[in-house]
């Protein structure tokens, strides 16, 4: 019964995401598509963060850093191409099939370095240190005046996708949705695989895992890097959506908001984080549209979720207990 309800919810979510471009002309045009694109992109970030929070019990409070790095990679590549300034001999690029994987690579490398350090600790140390390192990356980009520093870096146009221009909002939405589908697929295989078993085993009982001969550190590091890469991809998409990357994409508030999305939707559930991203953006947009003091209401809303709905929307639908 519970399973059926959650399957239904997942089905509804997929149907809604696919229906958006067809329904958009009747309910607000490109604005709706843009909002839906944000939901999809933040859905990817939330999904990747859930690999850490939900599956590995690693509460990372610095996930925005990898998101922002991904955004900067595409903005910087486009900046060098547009201004005819080679970057270490590379002319820069505006081709999505080049710069998006590059964004993932850079975010993944950053996650590798930061993760290697942070994963030496655990629990509350881990929370604070991931936050502190993200803040460090934030400050580095604020100080990078060549790339706009605090002002951020604008892109003249969206990336080309296999040589084609993506000017149409709907086309871009389909690309983002495709990326989300790919990430969902990867995440799903990851969590049922042997690798995923070790991660969730480590989340469930670290001592038992050690006694069975698992050095959990290496597995967690790989998970941290994979999550960083997915966030990097999302960042690349987000920079394309806005044609703009800025240190704001790395701010600790955004890291906090990503966590809220994951938990609002439901930790350790495949579709929960995506639902969380949708609900979060919906609530935030409508509240901030209604009152400039929206935080007064949004804060307690987050608080109530933390206190009374720790398993999020997915948990509510699925029912308690099992």
């Amino acid at each position, binding site marked *: 019964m519970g399973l059926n309800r959650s399957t239904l919810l997942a089905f509804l979510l997929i149907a809604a995401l696919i229906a958006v471009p067809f329904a958009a002309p009747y309910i607000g045009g490109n604005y709706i598509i843009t909002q839906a694109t944000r939901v999809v992109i933040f859905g990817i970030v939330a999904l990747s963060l859930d690999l850490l929070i939900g599956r590995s019990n690693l509460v990372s409070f610095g996930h925005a850093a990898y998101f922002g790095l991904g955004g900067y990679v595409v903005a910087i590549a486009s900046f060098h191409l547009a201004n005819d300034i080679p970057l270490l001999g590379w002319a820069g690029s505006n081709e999505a099939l080049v710069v998006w994987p590059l964004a993932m690579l850079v975010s993944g490398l950053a996650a590798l370095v930061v993760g290697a350090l942070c994963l030496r600790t655990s629990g509350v140390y881990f929370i604070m240190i991931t936050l502190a390192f993200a803040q460090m990356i934030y400050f580095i980009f604020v100080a990078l005046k060549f790339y706009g520093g605090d002002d951020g870096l604008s892109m003249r146009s969206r990336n080309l996708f296999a040589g084609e221009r993506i000017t149409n909002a709907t086309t871009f939405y389909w690309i983002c949705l495709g990326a989300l589908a790919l990430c969902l697929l990867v995440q799903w295989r990851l969590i049922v695989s042997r690798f995923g078993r070790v991660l969730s085993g480590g989340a469930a009982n670290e001592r038992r895992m050690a006694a069975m001969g698992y050095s959990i550190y290496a597995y967690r590091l790989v998970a941290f890097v994979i999550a960083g890469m997915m966030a990097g991809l999302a960042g690349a998409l987000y920079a394309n959506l806005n044609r703009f990357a800025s240190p704001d994409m790395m701010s600790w508030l955004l890291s906090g908001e990503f966590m809220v999305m994951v938990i609002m939707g439901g930790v350790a559930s495949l579709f929960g984080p995506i639902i969380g991203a949708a609900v979060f953006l919906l609530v935030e947009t409508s509240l901030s549209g209604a009152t400039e003091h929206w935080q007064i209401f949004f804060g307690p809303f*987050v608080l109530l979720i933390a206190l009374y709905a720790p398993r999020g929307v997915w948990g509510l639908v699925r029912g308690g207990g099992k």
Partner: protein
Amino acid sequence: MQLLIEQLLNGLQLSLTLFLLAAGLTLVFGIMGVINLAHGSLYMLGAYAGASVAAKLGNPWMALPSALLASALVGIVMEYLIVRPLYARDHLAQVLATFGLILFFNGFIAWAVGRPPIMMDTPAALSGFIEILPGLPYPTYRLAVMGAGVCVALGLWYIIARTRLGMLIRAGSDKRDMVEALGVNIAVLFTLVFGLGALLAGLAGVMVAPIRSVQVGMGEQVLITTFVVIVVGGIGSIRGAFIGSLLIGMCDTLGRAYAPILLKLWLSGSIADGFGAALASIMIYLVMAIVLIVKPRGLFPVGG
């Protein structure tokens, strides 16, 4: 030489302010295992309460009691209503709930006081400067802040090392059973400690209010630096918080003062200035990274 002395004093003053915040945060974590992101909000509330009351009454001295009262009261109410249900919960729930609190407090202050930064006047008696060395004047108020910081540090040391409350605090959350076996009402103890932490945060807030501008968001800047302090010092350790504060406060101040100057030895002027400023702003994180590589649980790890 004079410059160095002045910079060292500046670093010391920052360190002591950080210590007030770090002590509260590390106590709350050490004894009740709660990570409280809203600690920075208590600092902000202290500053706002002090500055508003001082402006209303036209007497800056009234800022101190009102800030202490406000932050301690809010802290106690917060503990009772929100933090208490979080004791049994994981860090994730704690982070999320206190993140919500930050949003709320920021929104609340913006609504109640307004967004423009407000200022607090320094008490007239402390508003000048004292010539600590010939040709080196130093703001009286900053000296007073240092004095207060040292007094609080000593007071905390006394409480923790010499009193029954301190013994209970040292026993920590791991030995909850033992503490309860001593006939101590653990709920009251937790409320007290949380209130004390809030009070110290409020004190830090009101003390810096006349120096810095009082504005929404001031709590978060300082919160992250405080995190760095207690991670470096070892979470739960008051001694660690003190050493960590000194290390981070000094690194930050001296880094800002000397990084550009040192870099000028190798780089041209404006590049050195820009790069030096960047280096200075990430200096404390580098220190943290180095400490973690050598000692993953901080300089003074607690419990094993």
